[in-house]
């Protein structure tokens, strides 16, 4: 048998990996390392970088200290938390419900699957503008609908208490199809013999759902929750278009602040530090979720 040298394998592997690795290094790793360095400077994002002229100047941990020590960061974190607490339960419920509806093989079900997915394909700008008009307190469709039931609709995007729920509404409309599709895949992976066994044991639809569907869906639910959490911390286009951080700062979130500091206030170093703090927070939550998954995620053998 011819001897296969260990090195031969390495060269071939690197050759095949190189195109992908190059992209990763050039467009991901190097910029991230650059941003990390910038977070320790006071660069204004405008003057061309010339280290020998002292542009930018190193300020050590000053950026981090002023972010964590100031009120704005915690206020913005609280706004993001409000979004997360509202969004994640609702998107999970909505997606699983949609997936259950699309699961049964009735006529025209593929048309409905496409319809549910279309919002995901639209651009956020278009979706946000439409929702801004639907949520208009005096002329919008949502308050019109509520009026039919005799409920007086709130001021939505003009009311500091209802602006974030309005954004949550738009986000659920937009993302529901995407996660419904993922859950659909999960549902179709559940062996029907489990349901038959449950029916034989006399379980009604709700018990079947709670004790068969949900546990067997839990790997998918875990995946969806991790992704949703990461995306929620990165909330941005809806805020910029629907409320621009208003009314009076009620919907200012982390990425919106990063954008402002970087591009409006000429404080690129500060914005860099802010984004790395955001990264640390997302990392922490994801790590926590991975640790907790043993407690509630049921992996089918």
């Amino acid at each position, binding site marked *: 048998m011819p001897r296969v040298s260990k090195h031969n394998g390495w060269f071939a592997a690197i050759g095949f990996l190189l195109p992908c690795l190059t992209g990763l290094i050039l467009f991901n790793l190097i910029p991230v390392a650059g941003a990390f360095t910038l977070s320790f400077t006071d660069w204004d994002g405008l003057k061309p970088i010339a280290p020998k002229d002292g542009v930018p100047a190193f300020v050590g941990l000053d950026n981090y200290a002023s972010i964590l020590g100031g009120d704005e960061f915690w206020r913005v974190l609280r706004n993001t938390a409000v979004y997360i607490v509202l969004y994640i339960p609702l998107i999970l419920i909505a997606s699983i419900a949609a997936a259950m509806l699309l699961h049964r093989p009735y006529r025209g079900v593929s048309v409905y699957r496409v319809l549910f997915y279309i919002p995901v394909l639209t651009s956020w700008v278009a979706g946000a503008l439409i929702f801004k008009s639907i949520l208009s307190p005096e002329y919008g469709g949502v308050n019109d609908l509520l009026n039919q039931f005799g409920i007086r609709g709130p001021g939505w995007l003009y009311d500091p208490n209802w602006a974030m729920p309005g954004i949550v509404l738009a986000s659920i409309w937009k993302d529901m199809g995407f996660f419904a599709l993922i859950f659909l895949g999960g549902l179709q992976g559940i062996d029907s013999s489990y349901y038959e066994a449950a029916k034989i044991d006399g379980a009604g639809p709700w018990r079947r759902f709670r004790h068969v569907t949900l546990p067997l869906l839990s790997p998918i639910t875990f995946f969806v929750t991790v992704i949703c959490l990461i995306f929620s911390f990165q909330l941005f286009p809806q805020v910029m278009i629907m409320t621009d951080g208003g009314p*009076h700062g009620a919907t200012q979130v982390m990425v919106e602040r990063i954008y402002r500091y970087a591009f409006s206030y*000429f404080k690129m170093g500060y914005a860099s530090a802010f984004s790395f703090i955001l990264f640390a927070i997302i990392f922490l939550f994801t790590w926590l979720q991975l640790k907790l998954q043993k407690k509630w995620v049921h992996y089918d053998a």
Partner: protein
Amino acid sequence: MKWNGRQWKLLALCMLVMAVLLAGCSGGGKSSGNSGGSSSGGDSGTARNNEDTGGSGDKAETVTVKFTNFSASGDNEKYLQQMKEEFEKQHPNIKVEIETLAYDDYFTQMQTRVASGTAPDAYELNYENFVSYAKKGVLLDLTPMFAGFDTSVLNKNALEAFSTDGKQYGLPASFSNVVLFYNKDLFDQANVSYPTSDWTWADAEQAAEKIRSLGDNIFGIYQPIQFWEFYKKVQQNGGSLMNADMTQFTVDTPQNVETLQHMVDRVLKTNVMPTEAQMAGMGDWDLFKSGRLGMLVTGIWAFPDFTQNITFDWDIEVEPGNTAKATHFFSNGLVINKDSKVATAAFEWLKFMSASREAAQIRVDAGWELPAVNYQDVLDKYLQVTPPNNKKAVFDSLNYLVTPPVVEQNAEMTDIIGLHLQAARDGVKSPADALRDAQKELEQRIKLQ
């Protein structure tokens, strides 16, 4: 090996996916890179001209000046093109490459380009960004190039607006200001006499209330409660946002509180001005154009739009003041990149755009803002284009102009004040509390030298 039908279908599907991906990526790239942008002079031309600019000392060689702007975007690109052609006729050895970007993306792009060293030779800046850029030292000092340039043709206020720390960093591209627009038909319906140049806040309020009572959907006046209106309105009441030498904020003085109370009462007490919810996302221009607004305080750049789209009778007047009159003065500046290799040629182009009679004439004929010049014959021609009939008010307003308080951290300051004004406007805080909180936050976050 011959492929069977399934493999052909798979190949076709792969190619379709590739095509869709490519189309999607390139479409996205185009729209993010150059929304509303246009550039004259192709890429091959740039490569050739770059070699020429290496020898910029030699007059016989063609020099290319790269110029980026935002104010021509929309309908005015053809007028900028006219200016470029006239300029190139007069200066056969200078070629101008124009790039026009939409306002919304302009400053993010410009910031990135300046930071990476790929900024154009000359470009346009609005006033508040001009001050930031000048103070950060990325603009070329134009003072040495003024030798032999008779600056008396330029409007003095406009020229001074673009000097910082005693050095001239820019030339005014154009200027515009803000006046009171009014709907003559609504005034006739409510039996109110038209605004005059002697009107005060009280006269305006009276008229607004009479017009408001014409109907539930008809409003008397609209003047947005935000930073840009506020810094001017306080001066109509003898106050100001900063002290005279710009070393301190004076936001929560009693006169300013009175001013803000007056603006907020219009919305919350008499409702002659619609609340944000009543506006429901409609723009103020649209409200005026729909014939449901008696008076609107907005800029003269609305003239072309209103002339084309309004069917009722309208006119303008100088904005009423209280103890004094104060009006806006807006000007866009033309600057040169400090690291430009063709600075002298770039200055010739900027000088032409800003101060030449030909460029001023093109602007006036097009109705594209006002040239900041003193050529009386050109300005007279401007006065003859109606509506509005009372165009004289545009120049009368110049007598009372105030410039915005501009500091290095300008965007931050504007946002802070804006946020607190919004709180007062929506009735969340009283005007006194809002201004006091604004003063506190400004003192904390804005460094004034």
